[in-house]
C-alpha cells in the first residue's frame, strides 16, 4: 500500500512542508497496525519535563547519560550549564553549581531516590564513595540555584536528584561489563523478579576498580579507587492509585591518594593516605490519595562509616521522616505543604595533631516545614509561586527560607521567569568542632623555625550560624518541541560564610623531623566572617539539525568577588573562593545516528583556568561509538581526552593532595539485557 504521508515525515527539517502535512492530517486515517510500524521522523527529547517550572532546571534522561559515555554521576553532569565538574583524581571529583565550591561543595545537595547523600561531617558529598549503577538510573535532575523551599537547608547553590528506575520496569536481567585501557574492569549485574500480585523486585551488584590518575611526569600512577555496592528495589504493582517503594543498599569503597607536605629544610614529600568508606541504607515511600489531593510519606535509615588512615574514623547514623501533601487545586491556587524531621547521631574518633574533633559524640535534630502556593494570575500566561521553608535545628538558629517566583508565558514556546530566594546552610561538624592541621608553611630564611604549622580551630566563644544566600535569577526558555534553548542570569550574594581569622601563635607545637624538631602553631579561628558575591550567565541549547544529527551545547560565564577584609587569613579565604572555579567553560556534544543501530558522539569541552592550585585551561575531545547489535546486546567504544596526552583538572583544596593528571583514556563496554 502506498503511503502518501511518508513524504511529509521524511522532511522533518523543512518546517513549512511539515506544516502543510499537519493541516491535512492524513495520518488520522491509519489503522493501529500501520501506526505501530510507522517510523517517527524526529523523536522529541523527554528531558524538559520540568520546563514548566520557574527555575533553572536540567533533566538528564537515561538516553542522555548513555550517549555521554559517562561511567559516573559527575561525568554525566559535565554538559549541564552552570555545573562545573572537575576530576581531582580516580573517583574523586569537585562538582560545583555556580561556583563557590571545592572538593566538598558544601552548598550542593545530592539525593538518590529522595535519600540525601550529603555528609554532615564535612558538609559535602564523598563522590569517591558513591558508585551508582547508571544502567538503572531513569534520570538525573539538576536544579541550579536555591531549591530550599522544597528540598531544605543545604540546597543552597543547587540540588542534584538521582532517580532510579522503578522495579516494575526492570523485570529482566542485565549484565554490564566495562574494560578500560589500563585493564581495569567494572562489572554490574541486575536481576528483576515479578512478584505476582504484589509488584516487582530487582537486586543488583556492582564491582569496580577505577582508572588511576598520573603524576605530573605522566608515567607513575598516584591513586587508587576500588569497591563494590549492592542493593535492591521493590515497587508495588502500578494498577492502583496508591504506590509504594522499598529499597536498600550497601557499599564498601577504598580510595588512596597522596598528600603532599610542604618541603621545608629537606623535610616533606608524599604521604599515601587511605580512605575507607562503608555504608548501608533502607528507604521506604508510600503515596496515597488524601483529601482529594495526593500525599506521600518517606522514611529512611542511613548508616555511614569512614576511616581516614590512622588519623580518624567516624560513624554517622541518620533517621529521616518526610511527609508531603499536594492539595487539589482550588480556584487559582495550587498548594503543597510538608513536614520533615531528621535525627543524626555522629561518633568520631580523631585526636591526632592532624585532625581532632571534640566532643566525639554528637546528636542533631532538625524539624522542618514547607509550604508552596502556585497562583495562576492570568490563565496560561502569568503564574506566581510563593514558598517558604522553616527549619528548626538543634545546632543553629531558626532560619526562614522564602522564595518568590514569577513566570510569564507569552506564547506556547516561550517563557520568561524571575525569582528571588533566600537559602541557608547549616554548619557541618567539621566546621563547628574540628581542629585541623592545614599544613606547614615555610618561614622566610633567618627565622628560628623552618616552618609554622597552620591549624584551623573554632574561634573562642563562636556560636556557629548558618551561612546565608540571597539569590536573584532571571531566565528565558524557548521550547523547540524537539529541542530547547535556555538562558539564565543569576546574582548570588552570600553572607556569614564560615572562614578563618588570624588567631594566636601557640599554645602547642607540631613535631617535625628536622632541627629543632618542632614547629610553632599559627591558629586560624573559624567564624561566620566572610562574604562573597557571584554573578553569571548560563546558556543551554539542544538543537535537532536533522533527524540524525543533534547538537547540544552549553556555556557558562561567571564572576566571583569576595568582600574585602583587613585580616590576611580572611582575605586569603576570600581569594580561594574567588578562584575555586573557572571564569567560563563551554561544552559541545554532537550526536549522530548512523543508522542500523549505530551512533557516534563527539564531545568537546573547554574549561577555563582555575586560579586555586594554578590549574591551566584545557580543551578535551571525547569520542563515542555505540552499536546496538540486536535487541539484547549493545556495545560502546569510548575514547576520552583524545588530543591531549595529559591534563590537570583540579587540585584538592581540602587536603594538600598531590596534583593528579588525567591521561588519554579508552574503554569498551558491553551491555546485555535479557
Amino acid at each position, binding site marked *: 500500500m502506498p503511503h502518501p504521508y511518508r513524504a511529509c515525515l521524511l522532511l522533518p527539517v523543512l518546517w513549512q512542508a511539515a506544516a502543510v502535512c499537519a493541516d491535512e492530517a492524513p495520518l488520522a486515517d491509519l489503522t493501529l497496525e500501520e501506526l505501530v510500524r510507522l517510523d517517527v521522523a524526529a523523536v522529541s527529547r523527554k528531558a524538559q519535563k520540568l520546563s514548566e517550572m520557574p527555575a533553572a532546571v536540567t533533566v538528564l534522561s537515561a538516553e542522555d547519560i548513555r550517549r555521554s559515555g559517562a561511567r559516573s554521576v559527575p561525568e554525566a553532569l559535565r554538559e549541564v550549564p552552570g555545573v562545573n565538574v572537575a576530576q581531582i583524581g580516580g573517583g574523586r571529583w569537585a562538582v560545583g553549581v555556580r561556583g563557590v565550591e571545592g572538593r566538598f561543595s558544601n552548598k550542593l545537595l545530592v539525593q538518590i531516590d529522595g535519600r540525601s547523600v550529603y555528609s554532615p561531617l564535612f558538609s559535602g558529598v564523598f563522590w569517591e564513595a558513591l558508585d551508582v549503577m547508571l544502567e538503572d538510573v531513569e534520570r538525573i535532575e539538576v536544579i541550579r540555584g536555591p531549591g530550599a523551599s522544597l528540598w531544605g537547608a543545604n540546597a543552597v547553590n543547587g540540588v542534584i536528584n538521582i532517580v532510579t528506575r522503578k522495579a516494575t520496569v526492570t523485570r529482566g536481567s542485565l549484565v554490564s561489563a566495562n574494560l578500560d585501557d589500563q585493564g581495569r574492569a567494572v562489572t554490574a549485574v541486575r536481576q528483576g523478579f515479578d512478584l505476582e500480585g504484589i509488584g516487582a523486585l530487582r537486586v543488583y551488584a556492582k564491582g569496580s576498580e577505577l582508572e588511576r590518575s598520573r603524576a605530573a611526569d605522566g608515567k607513575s600512577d598516584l591513586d587508587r579507587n576500588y569497591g563494590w555496592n549492592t542493593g535492591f528495589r521493590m515497587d508495588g504493582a502500578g494498577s492502583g492509585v496508591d*504506590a509504594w517503594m522499598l529499597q536498600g543498599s550497601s557499599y564498601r569503597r577504598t580510595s588512596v591518594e597522596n598528600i603532599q607536605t610542604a618541603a621545608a629544610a629537606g623535610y616533606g614529600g608524599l604521604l599515601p593516605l587511605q580512605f575507607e568508606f562503608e555504608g548501608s541504607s533502607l528507604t521506604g515511600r508510600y503515596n496515597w490519595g488524601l483529601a482529594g489531593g495526593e500525599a506521600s510519606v518517606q522514611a529512611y535509615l542511613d548508616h555511614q562509616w569512614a576511616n581516614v588512615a590512622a588519623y580518624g574514623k567516624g560513624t554517622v547514623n541518620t533517621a529521616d521522616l518526610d511527609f508531603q501533601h499536594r492539595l487539589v487545586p482550588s480556584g487559582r491556587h495550587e498548594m503543597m505543604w510538608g513536614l520533615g524531621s531528621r535525627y543524626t547521631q555522629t561518633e568520631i574518633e580523631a585526636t591526632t595533631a592532624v585532625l581532632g574533633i571534640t566532643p566525639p559524640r554528637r546528636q542533631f535534630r532538625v524539624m522542618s516545614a514547607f509550604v508552596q502556593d502556585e497562583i495562576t494570575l492570568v490563565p496560561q500566561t502569568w503564574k506566581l509561586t510563593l514558598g517558604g521553608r522553616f527549619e528548626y535545628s538543634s545546632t543553629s538558629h531558626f532560619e526562614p527560607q522564602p522564595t518568590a517566583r514569577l513566570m510569564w508565558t507569552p506564547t506556547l514556546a516561550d517563557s520568561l521567569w524571575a525569582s528571588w530566594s533566600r537559602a541557608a546552610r547549616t554548619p557541618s561538624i567539621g566546621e563547628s568542632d574540628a581542629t585541623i592541621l592545614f599544613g606547614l608553611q615555610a618561614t622566610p630564611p633567618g627565622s628560628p623555625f623552618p616552618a609554622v604549622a597552620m591549624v584551623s580551630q573554632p574561634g573562642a566563644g563562636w556560636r556557629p550560624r548558618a551561612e546565608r544566600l540571597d539569590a536573584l535569577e532571571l531566565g528565558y526558555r524557548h521550547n523547540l518541541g524537539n529541542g530547547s534553548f535556555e538562558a539564565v542570569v543569576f546574582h548570588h550574594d552570600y553572607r556569614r560564610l564560615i572562614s578563618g581569622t588570624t588567631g594566636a601563635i601557640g599554645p602547642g607545637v607540631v613535631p617535625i623531623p628536622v632541627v629543632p624538631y618542632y614547629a610553632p602553631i599559627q591558629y586560624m579561628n573559624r567564624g561566620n566572617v566572610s562574604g562573597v558575591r557571584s554573578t553569571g550567565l548560563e546558556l543551554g541549547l539542544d538543537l535537532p539539525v536533522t533527524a540524525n544529527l543533534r547538537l547540544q551545547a552549553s556555556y557558562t560565564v561567571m564572576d566571583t568577588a569576595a568582600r574585602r577584609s583587613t585580616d590576611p587569613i580572611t582575605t586569603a579565604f576570600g581569594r580561594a573562593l574567588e578562584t575555586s572555579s573557572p571564569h567560563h567553560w563551554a561544552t559541545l556534544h554532537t550526536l549522530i545516528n548512523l543508522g542500523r543501530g549505530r551512533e557516534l558522539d563527539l564531545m568537546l569541552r573547554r574549561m577555563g583556568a582555575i586560579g586555586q592550585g594554578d590549574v591551566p585551561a584545557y580543551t578535551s575531545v571525547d569520542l563515542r561509538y555505540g552499536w546496538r547489535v540486536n535487541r539484547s546486546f549493545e556495545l560502546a567504544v569510548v575514547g576520552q581526552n583524545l588530543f591531549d596526552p595529559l591534563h590537570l583538572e583540579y587540585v584538592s583544596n581540602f587536603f594538600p593532595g598531590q596534583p593528579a593528571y588525567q591521561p588519554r583514556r579508552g574503554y569498551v563496554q558491553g551491555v546485555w539485557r535479557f
Partner: protein
Amino acid sequence: MRRLFLIAVLVALGLGGLLAVASPPPGEYQIKAAYLLNFARYMEWPASRLPGGAALRLCVLGRDPFGGALTSLDGRQVNGHEVRVRSADSLELAMECHIVFVSDSEERRMGLILRGLALRGVLTVSDIDGFAEAGGSIGLVTEDERVRFDINQASLQRDSLRASSQLLRLGRNVIGTKGP
C-alpha cells in the same frame, strides 16, 4: 571579563532570535494524534457514560503539544460518535471528557490527575514516562524510533472501559492482566 559577559549575552540573544524563527518538526505528535483517534475507535465506554450518538469528547490537559494536529480531528466520526476536541483548563473540566491526553507539562501533577480521573470512565493517555505503570490507562512510548503503547488493563477494568482484543494485541506491554 565584563567584555566576555557582554559577548555571551549578545550570542544568547542572537541564538534566541534564530530559534524563534524555526518551528519544530511535528512528526511525532501527528502520530500520537492518530493514535488518540484509534483509541477512540477500539475502546468501548459504558452506555451510561457515552450514549449512542453522543459526542465523544477528546481533551488535552496541560500544554497542547500537538500543534494543530489534534484540532484537525475535530468533527470526525468514530463508531457513530462525533469527536469534539478541546482543551481542559482544569481537572474538573477533564472529568467530563471521554479521553484525556495528559501533556508532559503536567508530570508533577500526574498522581493528582490520575486520582481525580479514577472511577469516572475517562480513558487517560499520556507520553509521560511510566504513565501506564503509575495507573494511567494508556502510556505512549517511543522506542526504536517508533511510537508504541502500554495498556494498564487493571485501570481500564476499574473504570469499566473495554479495550478491543486488537488493541490489547498491539500493545507493547499489557499491565495488570491475570491470565485470559
